[in-house]
């Protein structure tokens, strides 16, 4: 099996498996006062400190959640509600149209049910949001509740310069949330240095367990809870702490950040070979997103493991099926719950037509990727594209 879908989820690290298994064998609610509870609490707080250290945050800024989707919902809705309560004029959300659906749909839900108004940010052709575009959309900022721009795009891998965006947001008096689910472990992520007010991350993109995520939230950020109950996480998030997966998340984040530089260099080299090899066999394939060697704010402008390509005349789901039948696992973009391939909203947002959006595949490399994976893809991609083209676009 050739796994080229690490952006969907990546294999759990052996040290994570060991840590989660060990913690799962112990009894204790981190909120209990007895010895078992104290031991669980200690493990959870050590994990919090370890995660904070890996990401340049303070432990008190770490809110454990059930994953990226919950963190995005909490940031968008929680910051919106709290900021609007402080000043009723703040009804506007300033959001990139290339965000993950956890952000997009939260914003649209607030617009439909809470009287919010969404301002969609202008994107560069690469999918990047510039500070100028943000400043322009914010205006004087007095009517804006929150701005949200992802650190790195999950489909096309484009990285935005979050520090400059946070500066622009703060100049207008607006907090910035950034979804860094794909960025952590791939590019340098330092919460304090970025200036962002809230940052989403999740464990299973880092070699950690599913169902474990965090929202890094500045101590001065007011955020209304989504979940009410025991108030375990700074009174912003309730629910018994899931200590085993929290421990796993922290171990994974520590390992992902510690090995980042070496891994990023290795993956970028593999990725560059993958793209060059595909273009050699399918000369009219098109690379989506930023150029491979793009730079933003002194760092990579594109995720090192991301290759997103369109194959004109072939349909993404036909390509995926043919590759799957040959043991190669990749993605047409973001998976859809109904299983129906829709034109990628990210490609549509950067101005690609529906045909190009439907004819794309995402190959994403990760910590277990090797040159053999790239070779396996390059051995079949030419005939697969040819066959998918013969099958046409399924419409007249």
């Amino acid at each position, binding site marked *: 099996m050739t796994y080229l879908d690490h952006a969907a989820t990546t294999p759990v690290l052996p040290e994570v498996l060991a840590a989660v298994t060990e913690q799962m064998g112990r009894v204790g609610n981190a909120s209990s006062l007895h010895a078992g509870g104290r031991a669980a609490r200690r493990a959870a707080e050590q994990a919090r400190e370890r995660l904070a250290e890996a990401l340049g945050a303070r432990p008190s800024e770490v809110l454990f959640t059930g994953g990226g989707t919950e963190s995005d919902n909490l940031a968008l809705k929680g910051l919106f509600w709290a900021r609007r309560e402080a000043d009723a004029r703040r009804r506007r959300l300033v959001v990139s149209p290339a965000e993950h659906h956890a952000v997009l749909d939260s914003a649209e839900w607030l617009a439909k049910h809470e009287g919010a108004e969404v301002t969609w940010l202008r994107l560069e052709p690469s999918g990047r949001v510039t500070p100028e575009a943000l400043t322009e959309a914010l205006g004087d900022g007095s009517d804006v509740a929150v701005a949200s721009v992802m650190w790195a795009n999950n489909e096309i891998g484009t990285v935005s310069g979050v520090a400059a965006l946070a500066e622009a947001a703060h100049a207008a008096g607006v907090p910035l949330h950034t979804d860094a689910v794909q960025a952590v472990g791939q590019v340098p992520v330092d919460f304090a240095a970025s200036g962002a007010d809230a940052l989403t991350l999740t464990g299973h993109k880092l070699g950690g367990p599913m169902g474990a995520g965090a929202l890094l939230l500045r101590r001065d950020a007011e955020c209304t809870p989504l979940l009410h109950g025991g108030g375990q996480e700074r009174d912003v998030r309730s629910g018994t702490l899931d200590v085993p997966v929290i421990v796993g998340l922290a171990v994974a984040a520590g390992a992902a950040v510690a090995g980042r530089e070496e891994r990023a260099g290795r993956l970028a080299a593999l990725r560059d070979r993958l793209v060059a090899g595909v273009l050699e066999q399918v000369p009219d394939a098109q690379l989506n997103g930023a150029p491979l060697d793009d730079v933003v704010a002194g760092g990579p402008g594109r995720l090192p493991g991301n290759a997103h390509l369109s194959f004109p005349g072939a349909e993404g*789901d*036909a390509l*995926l*099926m*043919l590759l*799957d*039948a040959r043991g190669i696992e990749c993605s047409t973009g973001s998976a859809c*719950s*109904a*299983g*129906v*391939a*829709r034109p990628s909203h990210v490609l549509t947002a950067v101005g690609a037509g529906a045909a190009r959006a439907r004819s794309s595949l995402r190959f994403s490399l990760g910590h277990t990727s090797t040159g053999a994976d790239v070779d396996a893809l390059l051995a079949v991609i030419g005939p697969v594209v040819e*066959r*998918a083209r*013969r*099958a*046409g676009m*399924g*419409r007249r």
Partner: protein
Amino acid sequence: MRVLAAMSGGVDSAVAAALAVDAGHDVTGVHLALSPDRQTLRSGARGCCSVEDAHDARRVADELGIPFYVWDLADRFREDVVEDFVAEYAAGRTPNPCLRCNERIKFTAVLDRARALGFDAVVTGHHARLADGQLRRSVDAAKDQSYVLGVLTAEQLAGARFPLGSTTKERVRAIAAERGFAVATKPDSHDICFIPDGDTRGFLTRRLGAAPGPVVDAATGATVGSHEGTHGFTVGQRRGLGLAVGDQRPRYVLSIEPVTRTVTVGTAELTGVDVVRTGPPTWTGPAPALPLRAEVQLRAHGTPVACTVDAAPDGGLVLTLARSERGVAPGQSAVLYAPDPVRGDLVLGQAPVTR
């Protein structure tokens, strides 16, 4: 053989896929998303293609250990089946959308794409027998679906597999239960999948708008009522006419004239037809020599009638029936069979009724 199993989420296509796996084929499952605005959950026995149906199909595919994908054919389905259905009614005809879907979606759009992607055949859960290129009725007479497959050509049948033709519906459910498929007890779907509330007249009125006209009695020529659109009527229909005629004898729709918006009605003895004329036929195999003695079935669950089939000068057929049939409507498909009580009636072909 590499086969593509079309899986609706129902019990028939689930068992058909399972039997294809058992037969040693390399099976890939696909669910066809045909509705542009898919409901999350099924809203009853009617309709199909909800996300829940796709999930049911995926559950079975996962249990069988076969790849599974959803193909979005909503645009094709709308153009080739739904719009055709509306246009046929607007022209005063009575179409069968299931037959149209088999003809144009399952065994054209899907089969063409499957062949291009390297598959040898498309497997479906239709109740019909197909062997050596010969399409026959199912062993389960009550569930036989050969009528809605009668439009397929030899070339299409060469790429089709119907594993359920020799299995009764009862046995299909038993196989599903033995395998632990959750769909074993799922109700059969009924009626037209794109009209989930079953209100065909309401659907057509929304699509075509109101177009009032007279209802005329065939015997007297008198206007005996009015209507809101000819698309609300089918030839042979008795109910819902809302007429004021002097005698108490029931009236039936005899004909529909969409240009003058006239619906002509008459008493029962006027509804019988002894000769049916059709447009050009399609054959499931080599075109047979005419004239020909055969049986004709005029609607999905109609009783077959013996007939003589002759060629008409315009390329259509003239079917002379052994006994008169009521409610024969233009647009219906006349499916021709060669009776065979041993191996199952053989489907010869089909032709659209013109009058």
